[in-house]
């Protein structure tokens, strides 16, 4: 099973992004030339073994592109991703899949409706040719128990399951080949609150039990604060702030992070609605603003913000990309 890893002995981060970028060439009309869309750029990040890193940001900020790159499904156009210190592009997809597994947002579309639960959960074992039929069956049952699925569902089909149960199947499928890293792309946003709580509790338990590392992508900051050790905030493909979750949540530095946190509606009826001074929506990523990408929406913008791209500043254990903290 899982080796009990002493973090001190393993200085290598489980996953590391070095200056990772991904550009898509977009064609907008029949006669126009292809334009570059920088979905992710200059992304630097480390995830240590056993940690939960949350990646947050608005839709269209490049979270999912990043997730695909972490899974090895999409090669980065610049920079490199290191998995256990090895560049991900030198490792075969099969090997990546043994170490990194995904859990997706929508458990209704991520499970094949024509396969039984047993077939779905055991698929990674089949693909990697692990074990005999009996061993696979045993392992499926073990993991079904682990994620809290009753054994009687083993021959059921996904349409016979509730949303929460389906997400448990997706989690069992991800864990059955004992990966080190699980990339969760909005794993609870399609679920009801009471079911969401079950799944979040399950993810917490599994993490402790199996010493898992999570890359957790979400737009729900309350969930992120509950689960994450580290937070990375993305805006228009750039990492604008990262640090310990407790620090970022108690003292956000970047104006965008502050606005995001202010927008969270906690169930406290006396507080009323927050005043958000962000103005316009996300700018067009095909023609991003000059200088700091955030300056047209920033309440604290300086004159230089529209001209110079800010550098990443290291304040304590925190990285911030903002002119205000020079």
């Amino acid at each position, binding site marked *: 099973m899982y080796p009990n890893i002493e973090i001190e002995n393993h200085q290598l981060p489980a996953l590391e992004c070095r200056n990772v970028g991904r550009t898509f060439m977009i064609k907008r009309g029949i006669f126009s030339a292809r334009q570059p869309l920088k979905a992710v750029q200059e992304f630097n990040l480390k995830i240590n073994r056993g940690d939960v890193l949350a990646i947050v940001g608005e839709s269209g900020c490049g979270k999912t592109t990043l997730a695909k790159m972490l899974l090895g499904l999409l090669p980065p156009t610049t920079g490199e991703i290191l998995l256990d210190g090895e560049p991900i592009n030198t490792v075969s997809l099969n090997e990546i899949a043994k170490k990194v597994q995904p859990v997706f947002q929508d458990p209704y579309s991520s499970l094949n409706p024509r396969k039984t639960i047993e077939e779905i959960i055991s698929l990674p074992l089949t693909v990697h040719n692990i074990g005999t039929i009996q061993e696979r069956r045993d392992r499926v049952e073990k993991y079904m128990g682990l994620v809290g699925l009753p054994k009687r569902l083993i021959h059921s089909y996904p349409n016979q399951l509730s949303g929460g149960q389906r997400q448990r199947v997706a989690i069992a499928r991800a864990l059955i080949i004992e990966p080190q890293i699980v990339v969760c792309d909005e794993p609870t946003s399609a679920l009801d609150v009471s079911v969401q709580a079950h799944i979040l509790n399950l993810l917490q338990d599994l993490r402790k039990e199996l010493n898992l590392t999570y890359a957790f992508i979400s737009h729900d900051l309350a969930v992120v604060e509950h*689960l994450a050790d580290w937070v990375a905030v993305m805006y228009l493909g750039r990492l604008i702030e990262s640090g310990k979750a407790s620090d970022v949540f108690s003292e956000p530095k970047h104006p965008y992070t502050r606005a995001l946190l202010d927008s969270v509606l906690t*169930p406290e009826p006396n507080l009323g609605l927050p005043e958000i001074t962000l103005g316009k929506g996300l700018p067009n990523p095909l023609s991003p603003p000059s200088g700091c990408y955030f300056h047209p929406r920033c309440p604290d913008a300086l004159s230089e913000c529209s001209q110079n791209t800010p550098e990443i500043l290291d304040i304590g254990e925190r990285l911030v990309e903002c002119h205000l903290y020079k």
Partner: protein
Amino acid sequence: MIAPIVLEVENLSVDIAIPAGTLHAVSNLTLNVREGETLCIVGESGCGKSITSLAIMNLLPRKAKLVADKMVLEGRDLLSIGESEFASLRGDRVGMIFQDPMTSLNPVFRIGDQLEEVYIQHGKGGRKEARERAEFLLEKVGIVAPNERLSQYPHQLSGGLRQRMMIAMTLMCDPALIIADEPTTALDVTMQAQTLNLLHSLQKEFNTGLILITHDLGVVARMADRVMVMYAGCAVETGTAVEVFEKPSHPYTQGLINCIPIPGRTKSSSQLGSIRGIVPALVGDFEGCLFRNRCDYVSENCYKGNISLNEISDGRAYRCLLSLEESRGHLEIGGVA
């Protein structure tokens, strides 16, 4: 002075005939909304909150059967009027905002035409007045250069802008009531806060009643004057937002509130509260409490008869056999983590 009641519904039930029997989507629902007041209907998927809104608008699917003792909008009896009269009410006296603005706006017509159509269709005035009204409202919803926007198509706008257009559209005829069904679920957090702010201030300005349907307890807490918690087609708890969130009386409401992580209050890496089991199937006849299979305080009596609403005070009620002291006592032991 208490504002006059805009919508009054008494004992609304909606049954839907399906092959397996009769599905009781909504049972015995009573609600009212006053001018300038926000009523939030909150519940998980499948609890009947959307069916309730469709029932009020007479937009139910054909297989659904509506029974109600009373349904009155601004003194007009909705139960006795026909479809054509309903059609003239919709968009005029009752506006509706749906979850996904892209599917509720027509992609092949300009925004301006769609906004003006509502106005002209209901005989409020000609094209020129309609244009003026549209420009006025677009400014109200915080859109700069309204003239330009009016000649654009829905796909040229971002999600947040589209939802603002929808808000402007529902206000075209100055309705007495707006029903908003998950209006911000498809939006980002920053857009959500801004859109809700807008909806709130416009509703106060135009003195419109608002029924806000959502599953997001954060939205409910910040927006609602009064809250109705629904479970399996029934109202299980009603009250003002402060009452419901600070002193939840029904075990389901308590469970729901414990389920969500609250920044700064829920300890991270601790377990969240949860509600076991799943929502029961609503097909066929049912006796007793619908929540009993998931309730921690279930007793023999929960299996018998009809559980009626326990009135605590005017407008504050919960549907449970536990006395107020008992259920509150449980809450304190269980505790908000």
